[in-house]
């Protein structure tokens, strides 16, 4: 087997569209993993697969063979990482499987917040980071400026920054030499008890759960009885192998190697990304560091528009979970929306993707309540309760302080927009941290902001105030006590649970006014005046009225019209049946959807 000194494990960190896939393709081609002739087809296959497998599947992990000028052969394991902030834990696990990372930046667009966040993760993980500017063939390319930005972020000098075009192949050969020359080889102990990191997994309909593993110490042999140190489960290593990129079974993966493992386990949540594998017969004493349970940060109630679809929604969630161990839910009942689930997501993107997949792939029509975060409420007996749904918030009389999760937000922006961003962040109860210039034109701003403000509309506001130029990344920070209240929305005196929200006291009136105003435009006139009120406890903070409709009658109904009018009215009745009754008020489904949409004027 390959001597560890001849192995290089690395990943590529890049913002979306900065050329990660193109570079990966080029590396595959240049190392002969894929024939240039087959290249097009191969790329397409990969894309199909990715689409099929969805969000939790990082693109491929692949084992490349590179021969240097002296004829020495190296094994290069390219480990892909998801690009999005929601999956930063997964990114961190992928990075933990590497000794180095390529920080790939578009020569025209420059450094983006998400790239930066992942680059910091790489630096913190002690990885050798090789900065690379891609797309130098573009007319708009400004590699000198981008090089300055990069060195301002991660240090080093502009000469250390590789300049390539993954598209044309320019500079890629040189980049391979840098990978071999700069990234340290793995340094685990091949004779120690087995320790291997599960850095990714996916569900295969035929094989069950497939784990991507990095062997740190010892050897992972096919047929071993393995112990998963975090879950405590033991499973046989039914098959181990490497990805070339086609799966190729091998007898053993040595220390430093990267490959896959199949145990026959069918349930993805039994295998935890970040877990450490060891030999059940002679286990390691200590697991590898850094394991954490995936932690949902954003919660939303999902309700089928048609109450009969509740079971279908459950089945769809279960199917999605086969490939997405981070997806969590519990049943929730809403007086207004019926039976559904409160679903936890890693972040807003994750929420959007899941909702979209449920609607598109499983043909479900859903109403999603406004996203919420997990609040911590101190109870009178001193215990802490986690509240994920405004409905569950105890009355002020029977609770103590509420605290809310903050995030550390990193915003990269052209310096012209610093003013508007500061204003926005202040309005969102954010706290200004450091501000540093990546270049005279680009600034990195560091803030602490309540997550609830981010999930509400922050991202859209940021984009609109910076003409789309600012990018945002965030990570969980501490919980802080805040003066939070529950605002209820009452229709005709009846609270509508789906519209309740936990908001800061200073924003309560704002929320109430906007929600009641919005609902006034969405709720059709009824046979009587319908007051729409926003209230904190028993105190009304804003009020609107949907005036009673005055005329709803066909002008003429004579002998010639009876059958036709009946048909018309029956059709109208069917339309009304799709409405939800809130007390005696008919509320169209669209009103829930539209009122809960957070992306326009809120």
């Amino acid at each position, binding site marked *: 087997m390959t001597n560890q000194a001849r192995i290089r494990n690395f990943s590529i960190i890049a913002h979306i569209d900065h050329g990660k896939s193109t570079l990966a393709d080029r590396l595959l081609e240049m190392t002969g993993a894929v024939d240039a002739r087959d290249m097009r087809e191969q790329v397409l296959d990969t894309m199909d697969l990715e689409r099929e497998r969805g969000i939790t599947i990082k693109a491929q992990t692949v084992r490349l063979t590179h021969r240097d000028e002296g004829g020495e052969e190296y094994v290069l394991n390219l480990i892909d990482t998801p690009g999005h902030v929601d999956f930063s834990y997964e990114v961190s696990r992928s990075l933990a499987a590497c000794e180095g990372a390529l920080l790939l930046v578009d020569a025209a667009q420059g450094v983006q917040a998400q790239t930066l966040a992942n680059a910091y993760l790489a630096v913190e993980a002690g990885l050798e980071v090789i900065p690379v500017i891609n797309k130098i063939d573009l007319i708009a390319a400004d590699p000198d400026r981008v090089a300055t930005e990069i060195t301002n972020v991660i240090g080093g000098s502009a000469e250390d920054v590789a300049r390539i075009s993954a598209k044309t192949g320019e500079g890629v050969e040189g980049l391979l030499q840098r990978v071999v020359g700069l990234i340290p080889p793995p340094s685990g102990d091949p004779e120690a008890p087995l320790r291997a990191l599960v850095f990714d997994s996916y569900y295969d309909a035929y094989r069950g759960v497939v784990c991507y593993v990095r062997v740190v110490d010892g050897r992972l042999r096919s047929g071993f009885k393995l112990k998963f140190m975090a879950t405590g489960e033991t499973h046989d290593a039914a098959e181990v192998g490497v990805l070339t990129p086609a799966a190729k079974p091998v007898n053993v993966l040595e220390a430093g190697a990267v490959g896959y493992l199949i145990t026959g386990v069918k349930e993805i949540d039994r295998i935890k990304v970040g877990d450490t594998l060891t030999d059940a017969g002679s286990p390691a004493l200590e697991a590898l560091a850094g394991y954490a349970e995936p932690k949902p940060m954003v919660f939303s109630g999902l309700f089928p528009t048609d109450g009969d679809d509740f079971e279908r929604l459950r089945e769809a969630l279960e199917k999605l979970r086969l490939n997405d161990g981070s997806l969590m839910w519990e049943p929730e009942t809403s007086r207004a929306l019926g039976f559904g689930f409160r679903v936890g997501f890693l972040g807003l993107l994750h929420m959007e993707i899941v909702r979209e997949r449920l609607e598109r792939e499983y043909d479900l029509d859903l109403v999603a309540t406004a996203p919420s975060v997990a609040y911590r409420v101190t109870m009178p007996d001193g215990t802490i309760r986690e509240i994920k749904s405004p409905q569950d918030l105890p009355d002020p009389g029977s609770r103590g302080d509420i605290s809310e999760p903050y995030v550390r937000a990193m915003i990269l922006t052209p310096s012209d927009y610093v003013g508007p961003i500061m204003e926005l962040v202040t309005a969102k109860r954010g706290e200004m941290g450091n501000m540093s210039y990546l270049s005279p034109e680009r600034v990195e701003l560091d803030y602490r902001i309540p997550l609830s403000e981010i999930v509400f509309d922050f991202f859209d506001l940021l984009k609109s105030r910076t003409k789309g130029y600012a990018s945002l990344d965030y990570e969980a920070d501490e919980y802080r006590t805040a003066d939070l209240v529950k605002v209820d929305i009452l229709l005709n005196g009846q609270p509508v649970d789906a519209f309740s929200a936990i908001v800061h006291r200073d924003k309560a009136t704002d929320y109430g006014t906007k929600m009641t105003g919005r609902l006034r435009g969405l709720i059709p006139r009824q*046979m009587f005046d319908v007051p729409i009120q926003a209230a904190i406890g028993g105190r009304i903070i804003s009020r609107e009225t949907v005036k*009673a*409709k*005055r005329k709803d*009658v066909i*002008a003429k109904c004579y002998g*010639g019209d*009876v059958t036709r009018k009946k048909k018309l009215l029956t059709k*109208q009745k069917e339309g009304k049946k799709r409405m939800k009754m809130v007390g005696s008020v008919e509320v169209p489904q669209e009103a829930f959807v539209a009122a809960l949409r957070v992306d326009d004027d809120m």
Partner: protein
Amino acid sequence: MTCDGGLLSPADVDLHAEAVAAYVHIPFCSAVCPYCDFAVVAGADEQIGRYIDGVLAEIEMSPRWRQLDSVYFGGGTPSHVDPAHLRRILDTLASHHGLADGSEISVEANPEDFGPDRASELIAAGFNRVSFGAQSFDGAVLARLGRRHRARDIEASLASARTAGFENVSMDLIFGTPVESDESWVATLRKAVALEPDHVSCYALTVEPGTPLHREVKAGAAAPDPDTQADRYETAEQVLGEAGLGRYEVSNWSRPGHESRYNLTVWAQGEYEAYGNGAHRFVDGVRSHNVRRLDAYLGRIERGERPISGSEPVRGWDGEVDRLFVGLRRSAGVGPGPGVDALLGSRGGDLLRHAGVIDVREGRLVVTRPLLTDEVHRQVLDLRPPQGWVDAPERDNL
């Protein structure tokens, strides 16, 4: 029992269920009004003779019946055709079914083609009630509605009708046309009552799909505003009421004893035959209608076939629902029955009652907010029979 003016006793309105009636459709018009969605044709006058023959043939084809209590010639514009044609139809109805003594024989007329001669000819033909498509006394409204008469033609027409001997004269008005103002509507109502009609129908202008008006509104023309129309309706209620015209149906007012008997029969779920293209009938517990297109109608008749194109049996529970559907538009409402119990026992019925839309008065279910009648109707159409209900044959024609 007071029912908005106290014109009709409930027993009176329900008696009309026993009467039988006939409707005759005359589709011809000089021009088609932009809001109209009836089965009408303009510029097809050369077809009139052939059509009349067709209607005569259709009458002959229909089963002989009891004596008719009322006959209604609607359109289109019956007054647009030679009264001699109408007379042939009326004579055939009389010989085929018979006309009861004192039967009501109505004809619709447009002020644009109605003078002393026509009035006398219609009286001579046997008509005793005339209903004018007056629509408005406001020139701007008439223009917007594409009407071809002026306000003074209405006065002249009514005068001609009275002179010729019509003792039962009605007038249709349309309110809520976007060019109309509150003042012009009041003026129209005052001018209408000044002519002392026996009967007035007031209709909210309705944008019907497929009409030129509908296309104009879709293209951005002003649409009637329902709240404005509600105001105008209330104004009509007041002005007509002060003039001694009581409302006996959502859109119909009359002097006592001058309610439209034909329409009362329809609303009492009485039976009526119908002749002509697009005409609807209710006979033997079945609502059916003729083909709508003139050429298709004539083709069927000329092949010796009855021109029926669709039917809906309304027996058993459906019949009871139908009784409420047609009956609740009347101010007198409907008498007790399983449908009334079902409505009052439903959640929807409860809401309607709480919102003051329906009420039970002296044992009858009445709609107390007529402008929301469709709310009641949607609920009625959704009613399910009580447990154990069987549509037994003997329950037919409830």
